């Protein structure tokens, strides 16, 4: 199409969108478009043509219908904190913001459920229900800024995944706007519901490639009565890994079991100034919650296990405030690492928890082999590690080595019975590797689902499905 024609088409689309959502909620300025050209994933940037902010489900559906008719790509976006380039509008088109749909609609104490719009900030949900003695456990590190719509679309995990599971385990019902302009409801405030395919779960973690979540009902549980936090300090990274497996083998499931290596500790302490030990090789941040006597008993036993595995020290957080500071500091780990080098590339290869020590060792061997600097932190308790490469995107030679190193990490994770990504999503960064995990037949099933729901491929195009898969470095076992 000639540029005059493109411009004409865009102007018309802009007018039509304005008819749906109001002029003030459509933006085509350079500044307005640039600031939605990226997310928290390094090295991905692409400007959308238009930015639109619908105010409710009906408007959202109408926007999707219009985009379908005009074959315009649509990317739904919460706070743009995701880490696999899922919100980057890589093929141009429309960025759809959910920010105006930001209300908590209902807190149902009888059914232990909260119904929210997609633009509500995760932490707001946590704080609101906790005031009522209830608990919404999923707590991704970005919970202070991430939206629940984004969490559901990415099936976000968090620090409490080990004991409480992830976002998927707390979504009871959804309302979804489909590309054809229909609104559907899935699930309900029900513990048991086997009517039809589990569409709720299909949309969870679908990374914006199937529809836009316009409402969600989340499961709540009673807030744990007590909580205790300890830090176990190690001079041997693998000893920390062994402690993790041994704690679980001793039939205890802590609420949180986080691993931070020395690089990460130093970066976090540099930011948070809360007195984290920076002279040890690694720490485990361990939280247990529940009835007081069980918390006391578990923490005591866990401390003993850590000591028996050569922890050089085990420290108990003196107060709830101190415990909260530790958790907050841990949540800043990735961004804090960013202070060390211009580019931080983070992955979240995940292995069965019994393989944690093996994986930690493999990561450091791979880093050495490719001569790249990799810091590791993560949710050791659920096998979800965050090896983070500290690099500089301007150094092409190093970037190639970084890519090779991550390929090998993915390979290793899958070999150990793990996966490419535990909680960050496939997006663009891991799309070329997805076949390694699913196989061609598995990918074919996914393509069929995508085709059925979004035949024109307008929903978040360029994500999850790669144009070409990566060659595996070794033959699949």
């Amino acid at each position, binding site marked *: 199409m000639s540029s005059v024609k493109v411009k004409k088409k865009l102007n018309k689309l802009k007018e039509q969108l304005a008819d749906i959502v109001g002029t003030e909620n459509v933006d085509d300025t350079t500044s307005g478009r640039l600031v939605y050209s*990226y997310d928290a994933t390094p090295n991905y940037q692409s*400007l959308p043509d238009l930015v639109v902010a619908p105010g409710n489900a009906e408007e959202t559906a109408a926007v999707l219908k219009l985009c379908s008719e005009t074959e315009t790509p649509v990317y739904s976006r919460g706070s743009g904190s995701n880490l696999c380039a899922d919100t980057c509008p890589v093929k141009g088109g429309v960025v759809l913001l959910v920010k105006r749909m930001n209300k908590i609609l209902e807190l149902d104490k009888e059914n232990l459920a909260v119904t929210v719009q997609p633009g509500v900030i995760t932490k707001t949900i946590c704080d609101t229900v906790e005031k009522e003695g209830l608990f919404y456990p999923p707590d991704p590190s970005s919970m202070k800024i991430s939206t629940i719509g984004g969490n559901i679309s990415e099936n976000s995990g968090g620090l409490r995944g080990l004991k409480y599971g992830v976002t998927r385990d707390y979504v009871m019902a959804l309302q979804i706007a489909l590309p054809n302009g229909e609104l559907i409801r899935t699930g309900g405030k029900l513990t048991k519901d086997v009517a039809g395919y589990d569409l709720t779960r299909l949309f969870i973690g679908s990374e914006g490639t199937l529809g836009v979540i316009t409402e969600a009902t989340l499961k709540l549980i009673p807030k744990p009565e007590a909580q205790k936090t300890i830090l176990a300090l190690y001079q041997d990274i693998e000893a920390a890994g062994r402690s993790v497996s041994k704690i679980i083998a001793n039939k205890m499931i802590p609420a949180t079991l986080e691993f931070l290596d020395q690089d990460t500790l130093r970066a976090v302490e540099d930011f948070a100034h809360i007195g984290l030990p920076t002279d040890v090789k690694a720490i485990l941040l361990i939280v247990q919650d529940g009835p007081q006597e069980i918390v006391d008993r578990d923490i005591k036993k866990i401390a003993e296990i850590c000591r028996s595995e050569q922890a050089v020290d085990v420290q108990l957080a003196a107060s709830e405030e101190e415990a909260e500071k530790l958790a907050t500091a841990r949540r800043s780990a990735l961004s804090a690492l960013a202070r060390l080098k211009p580019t931080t590339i983070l992955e979240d290869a995940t292995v069965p928890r019994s393989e944690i020590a093996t994986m930690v060792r493999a990561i450091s061997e791979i880093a050495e082999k490719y001569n790249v600097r990799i810091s590791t932190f993560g949710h050791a308790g659920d096998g979800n590690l965050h090896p983070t490469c500290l690099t500089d995107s301007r150094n092409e030679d190093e970037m190639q080595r970084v890519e090779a190193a991550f390929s090998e990490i993915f390979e290793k994770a899958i070999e150990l019975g793990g996966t490419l990504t535990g909680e960050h999503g496939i997006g663009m960064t891991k799309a070329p590797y997805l076949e390694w995990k699913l196989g061609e037949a598995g990918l074919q099933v996914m393509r069929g689902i995508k085709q059925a729901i979004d035949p024109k491929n307008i929903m978040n195009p360029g994500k999850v499905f790669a144009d070409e898969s990566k060659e595996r470095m070794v033959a699949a076992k």
Partner: protein
Amino acid sequence: MMTTSVKKKIQKEFKEKMDYDELLNCMRCGFCLPSCPTYIETGQQEKYSPRGRIALMKGITDGVIEPDDDIAHSLDLCLGCRACEPVCPSGVKYGRLLEDARSIIQTNKKQSVPVKLLRKGIFEELFPHQNRMEKATNLLGFYQRSGLSKAVRKIGFMELFPSSMATMEKVLPEVPKRKEIKQRPRFFEHEGEKKATAALFAGCLMDTMFFSTNNATIKLLQKAGCDVVIPENQLCCGALHGHSGELEKAKQMAKQNIEAFEKEEADYIITNAGGCGAFLIEYDHILKDEPEWADRAKHFVSRLKDISAILVDLDFQNKYRLHLPEQTVTYQDSCHLRNVMQTFEEPRTLLKSIEGVHYEEMEGANTCCGSAGIYNIVEPDMAMQILDHKMEKVEKTHAKTIVTANPGCLLEMKLGIERANKSGQVRAVHIADLLLEALD
């Protein structure tokens, strides 16, 4: 409208002058978003957030986009409160990026004649000359004392101005006579045991319009055991210039101040204005490329402290019995004192140590009140929106006294009290004045 040649020049200078490593240091996690007043007040528009603004700067530098008026406005609408800095895990120096970007746009942008004149008047003719500041204040004093102010109000002359400025005129403090300023000694002796020598950074506004607050500050320092000296030839810190894209002018002022304070080898350089402190503390940064000045600036910065910080250091609050009639008191942080000088516990410690004071922490005390230097003059709509939301939070504390630590914040809170129709019921005071009141 920016012409094509202006756009090209701005783009070229972004490429040459912006600190690219610092731009890359922002990894776009978005942890800054909830701390940004303009992001929140504009209904979460990313272009009015720190992450968005940095992306715009980087976009221009990378050549992904061209500069335009809309982008300039995104930068203009930033309060410069720097609340995004302490919450940034990567430690991005947002304030410095902002100042560099504004400076490039400012030097290249064509301004309308009235704006040009106003800027020239303020930045070149008035603030860098303390004697002119005194004269201007004297004029204001004449205006207030002669009855002219009453007449003007009666005629309704101020109604010709934006409502915020008209209200501002009402809340300006009664200023001292020029003679009073001129006759003040330059040295004050400590009381009790001598602890240190403090050189007072008097400040341009503080030493004219808020002269009595400076006197209170001196008195408190004496009581805390300090010899106090007011070095001659010091002048405005240059913050207004630096924040408004007039960086070169600010550098000259920094040099003159460094020289003035070198003559008095005091243990501390004390300021009672968070806004000044936060700029003085950056002297080593703005002069880092001038070998002759870099170390001198570092030495200057190393001695800098806010009045509340030194009082707590010298244990002032336990040395004296501080008491006031029973009242609820709240504290509005000065953004720059908090986010840049990292002084926020100390004022609270001092206030809580006063008998009779029921201290009530205000929700969002750490967020900007909308004053932000001359922001409330150049962006009155956003400033008033922020201020009105702030006053709702003040009301929730039931405080009768709002304490601040910076002249801009003080005037803004007074303005807020007027706007909320609370004058006579609620007052706003500088912490130094309140402490002196509690001492007498």
